């Protein structure tokens, strides 16, 4: 089998019993205290091929940590995770050839231009620079970014513009699995729509699977085939947006279902009751 190819029936991502904790050190008087808190507490997940799986959850619930495990940037404490049947630890190198990630914080050399950053990316992923530049220009045009923005240092671009370049950079390596960690956070409504259209297009035209973290319910509902709701390191509900709404918020929307599932509606009711009393 060629290093880059995968069997067509493989599950895109499969993981079981994933735990990940982080230690934080602090000084209490003259004593150093190490506390370990867990970002993921036994997560099981499966993403089908060509599926867009949404991950919804409050701040600090472990979404980015989960994405980092898939991106081979973190090693789980316990459990296993496979991307197209390849173990993220043992077959790290081969997994890396199949994935790319767009993170919340656009990770660029900010003094360099978009073109220079793209040249670096193309080099790392074995894409010829000439081809990468043409492809990126095309992608960015469809995302509504003017050409001349590619020639100036990235620090002079707005956050949304940088985010679009990050998306183009990830796409030009034609990843089979695309990890999107809040790709539209900070984008204006039009740009957000452009990116969403684009994601749907990519899925239609290429053979790619996506995992998408977002705080935008409408976006999740629009893009995702299924949604996993994560809360305090555990996935507490999975289903199609329609299923989730039907089971947890009949008559309401995805947001109501989200509040219900994460128990945040209880808290809100309690807070309101206290406020009244």
């Amino acid at each position, binding site marked *: 089998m060629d*290093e880059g190819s995968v069997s067509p029936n493989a599950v895109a991502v499969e993981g079981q019993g994933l735990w990940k904790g*982080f*230690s934080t050190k602090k000084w209490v008087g003259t004593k150093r205290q190490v506390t370990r808190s867990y970002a993921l507490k036994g997560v099981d997940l499966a993403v089908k091929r060509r599926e867009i799986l949404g991950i919804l959850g409050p701040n600090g619930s472990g979404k980015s940590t989960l994405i*980092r495990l898939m*991106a*081979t*940037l*973190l*090693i789980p*404490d316990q459990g296993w995770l496979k991307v197209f049947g390849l173990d993220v630890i043992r077959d790290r*190198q*081969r997994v*890396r*050839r199949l*994935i790319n*990630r767009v*993170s919340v*914080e656009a*990770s*660029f*050399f*900010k*003094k*360099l231009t978009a073109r*220079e950053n793209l*040249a*670096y*990316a*193309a*080099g*790392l*992923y*074995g894409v010829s620079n000439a081809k990468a530049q043409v492809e990126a220009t095309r992608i960015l045009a469809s995302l509504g970014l003017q050409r001349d923005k590619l020639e100036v*240092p990235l620090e002079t671009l707005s956050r949304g513009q940088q985010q679009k370049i990050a998306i183009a950079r990830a796409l030009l390596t034609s990843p089979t699995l695309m990890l999107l960690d809040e790709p539209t956070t900070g984008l204006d409504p039009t740009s957000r729509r452009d990116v969403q259209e684009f994601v749907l297009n990519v899925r239609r035209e290429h053979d790619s699977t996506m995992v998408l973290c977002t705080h935008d319910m409408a976006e999740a509902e629009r893009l995702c085939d299924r949604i996993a709701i994560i809360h305090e390191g555990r996935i507490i509900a999975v289903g199609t947006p329609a299923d989730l709404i039907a089971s947890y918020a009949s008559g309401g929307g995805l947001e109501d279902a989200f509040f219900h599932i994460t128990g945040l509606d209880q808290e809100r009711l309690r807070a309101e009751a206290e406020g009244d009393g």
Partner: protein
Amino acid sequence: MSPTGRELHALWSVVRRNFHLVRRYLGWELVFLFYNVINTLTIALIAFALPPADRDRTIIYLTIGALLWNFLSILFQEVASSVSWERWEGTIEYSFMAPIHRLTYLAGVCMYAVLYGVLRTIVILVAVALFFHIHLARADWLGAAMILAGSSLPFIGLGLIGAVLPLLSTERGAQATQVIQGVILLVSGIYYPISVLPGWIRWMSHLSPATYTLEAARRAILNGEGPLHLLPLTIKLFLSGLILVPLGLAVFQLAEHWAMRNGTLKRSG
């Protein structure tokens, strides 16, 4: 692209990225270069306070120290700060999840460091030569080049070990690399023979590859000793490189694994 072709392509893109960065920070580059030139000149000017008989030899003695230290510290610093730099820029996760061997990435960083160090050293050398009208008729340049090549390896190895520290601890690591550099500067006999050092730190001189580099460079340029005479020293340097580079790589990979377990690759935390 063949797998080897792909790795070479990636290696080149790391080198190119760094030169792009140099171009963007050109103002600072020029300022640092200016400072380096002045610093080298002031050190060499110390020789003018000496009786005329010792002067020429001392100018060259000091200049060799200043130039070599300049080159070696660039090597060490560029390699050692590559990780903290990427972390500061926020690109470290992007670079480290790329489908290339870590060796390729690090080789790119080292190759850039050597090219950049050589370029800067040449500029300073030219400036010093113009300023003092130095005659280096007796110098054996082939011998000096051999020494330079031999000393690059151990310094790259030290740089790799230095680069590991910021992977382990964000701020402390970067601080520690500065301290290491300072100690090497003190014990390697850059501007004085190591015999002037107090006994309790002199043993460290024998551990620093810079000590041997300087000794060899001075013998080549001041005494005109040829490659044959310097061969034992060069072999020593080369061997220390053969140990330090693989050691640096191994330590780096262990540290990366550790960082992936502990979540310290990330920019913050």
